[in-house]
Each structure stands twice: as C-alpha cells, then as structure tokens.
C-alpha cells in the first residue's frame, strides 16, 4: 500500500514538473538561402507555454530582438540570418530559459572548391 502511494505521488510530481517546464515551438527553424553568404529572411512564429511570470527577452546570437512579459511576442517576428544562428530566450538575470538553433540551407550547390595544393607550402 505504501509502495503504491509512493509511486502514485512520484508520478504526480513528475507530471506537475513536466507541465510547468517552459517550452516553445518555433516555425520554421530552417531558412533556405540562395547561396553561401547571402541573407536569408525568416518570418518566425513563436508559440510558448509554461513561461515564468516575468519579463523575458529574445536574443539572436546575443543580439537583443524583443522583450515581453511571459514571452508574449508578436505572432510573427521577422529576422534575417547569414549562417546557423542561436535563438535564445533569457530572463532579466540573463539566465537562459530556452534556446534553439536556426539552421540555414542553400538552394544553389556550393561552388567552393577544395584546393589541391596547400597554400604557403614550401615542399
């Protein structure tokens, strides 16, 4: 009986903890650029849940994008990236609440060629 109660109690705590864990859904998280080094514009939709009741700020590779109470951001956030970039949600104390890497892919094949001879070589 004691064992049964313990299991039940632990399961409830686990379920409560999971329910309160901050989470977000970012769409899309992959940006398609034409070629290497070209800018890739992204219209980002952010859906959050279980956010702490404080002001939270959104950073794009340490660059501040926006701050909002409980992360109530606009329906769409427009950003532009040139390489894989980390999107981070932080509180006022600069503690990271959530983070997600935004990936960049290229529609044109990479036209960089690997050199056959090493540069500055003396042999």
């Amino acid at each position, binding site marked *: 009986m004691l064992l049964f109660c313990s299991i039940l109690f632990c399961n409830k705590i686990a379920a409560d903890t999971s329910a309160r864990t901050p989470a977000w859904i970012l769409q899309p998280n992959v940006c398609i650029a034409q070629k290497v080094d070209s800018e890739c514009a992204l219209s980002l939709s952010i859906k959050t849940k279980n956010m702490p009741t404080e002001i939270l700020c959104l950073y794009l590779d340490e660059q501040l994008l926006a701050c909002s109470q409980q992360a109530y951001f606009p329906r769409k956030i427009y950003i532009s990236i040139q390489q894989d970039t980390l999107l981070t949600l932080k509180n006022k104390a600069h503690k990271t609440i959530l983070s997600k890497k935004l990936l960049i892919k290229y529609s044109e094949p990479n*036209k*960089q*060629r*690997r*050199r*056959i*001879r*090493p*540069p*500055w*070589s*003396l*042999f």
Partner: protein
Amino acid sequence: MYFTLCRLIILLSWFVTSTALACLTQDRCVEQSSWQLGVAIGIGVKTNPLVDGDNIPLVILPDIAWYAKQAYFDNGELGYQWIYKPKIAFETFLQLDSERAFFSFLHPTNILFPIENSAINSPAPPAQDMPMNQPSLSIDKIASRKWGINGGIRGHYFLSKGEWQLTFQQDISNVHKGQQVRLEYSHNWLWHKFHLALRVGTDWKSARLIDYYYGVSERDTHVTEFYFEGQSGWQTYMSVTVQKPITETWSWLANLGYRKLPNSLTNSPIVEQNHISNIFLGVAYRF
C-alpha cells in the same frame, strides 16, 4: 625510419573519422572560376644541401590559385580534375620539377627578394652530416642542370580533417626521363583561433632523376674520383603550418619543414647536407 613514419601516419589517421569533405579553413578552399591571391611577407630560409649552393631566402611567398569546374592552376601546377567527389578526387597535371631550384639562384623567391647569401647561410654542416671521406665538388664548377617538366596523376582520399594523396610524376620534357612517386597524409586542425596543418609524406625518386641532378660524370669534371652515379631513393618529409587570423584579410603565418635525403643522393660529391629544412615566420595577406 620508414617504420616510424608509418606508425606516425597510422596514429594520425586513427582519430579521424571518414565523413564528408569539408573546407576547414577558408585558405584551403577557393570559389569556383575566380582567382585566389595572397602574399606572405616575413623572414625565413630554405636550406640548400648542395656544395656552395645558395640557401633560398624566404621573404615573400606568393600564393596564386584559380579553379574552374575541372581545370585549375595552383602555385605553378596546371591540371585537370577528372573526378571530384566528397570522398575521392583524381587529377592529371603538369608542373616544373622543383629539383632544379637548388642549382640556381634564379629561384622564384630569390627573384622576388634577393638577399645576400652570407646573411642567411647556415653554418657549415656538422661532421656527421658530411659523407665520410667524401671529396666535394662545387656546383659552380659543374655542368648546368636543366629544368624538367613533369606530367603527373594524383589521387585523393578525403577524411573529415585529413587527406591521403598518392601522386605519380614522369618527366615529359626528356631532360632526365625519371619518375617520382609520393604518398602523403595531411591533417588540419582548428585549435582556438589557430589553423594548424600537418603534412607527413615520402617521395620515391627514380635513379634517372637522382643521377641527372646529383650524379657526376665527364660532363662535369675530368677528375674521375668525383664520378658518382645516383641511385633511386626515398625522401621522407614533414611540415607544419600554423596560421592565426588577425583580421579578415591578414593573418600570422609560421611554417616549419624538414626533408631527409637518402644516401643514394647524399653520397654525391656535390651534396654536403643530408637534409633540407625550411622555416618561415611572417604575416599573410589574402586579396
């Protein structure tokens, strides 16, 4: 020594995994159909193993490359790449035989910035570097050697940070009609802001090639005790290049290299050192 080299190569390749081709540093990659130009300025020297041979001052190192989809020019090598895949590549090429550079002060680096030889000459080699009881003959007193043009084929096998190369070259200019084969492993690291590149390899050079450049016969002197017939031999080499970016276009550059010469060459009376070494310290600019 070759056992040691093999162990080193196996050790180096042991910790690399076979994944897709990657350009670890921008220097190792070039945008298709455009020139990649660079120049390094600094101080350095490449030793000359020949008797009375001028050490080659390294003050300005140019870097010139152009790659089309398959044809390319890379620091004096003109070639055509038949296969270029993430894991393997194969090309044929033409290049000058670099062996001739030691016989002349008209080496490209010397033309760019000649320095008085006395300022950079290394001291006389230690006794153990000299072949025992070997009389020497100055290269100033022998017949001139011609530049050879080599035609070659080369295969690559790419790893995530390393690369194996196997190269065969044949003199196609009928200067000496010799051949050479090279097996090389190169490895690239990115450590903090330092780009490190290590190359370890061995060259086999045929008797015809060695004998043409380092052999001594009646074409050079009438003193028969100097006569020497060069034999084929293996030359093991190793080089380390370290680069640290300063800005987007400037970087610190250091290069260190060592090549061991075989007895089949060092027994020649025109050779007085059993190795070739080079060092260069400077800054590199990428246009």
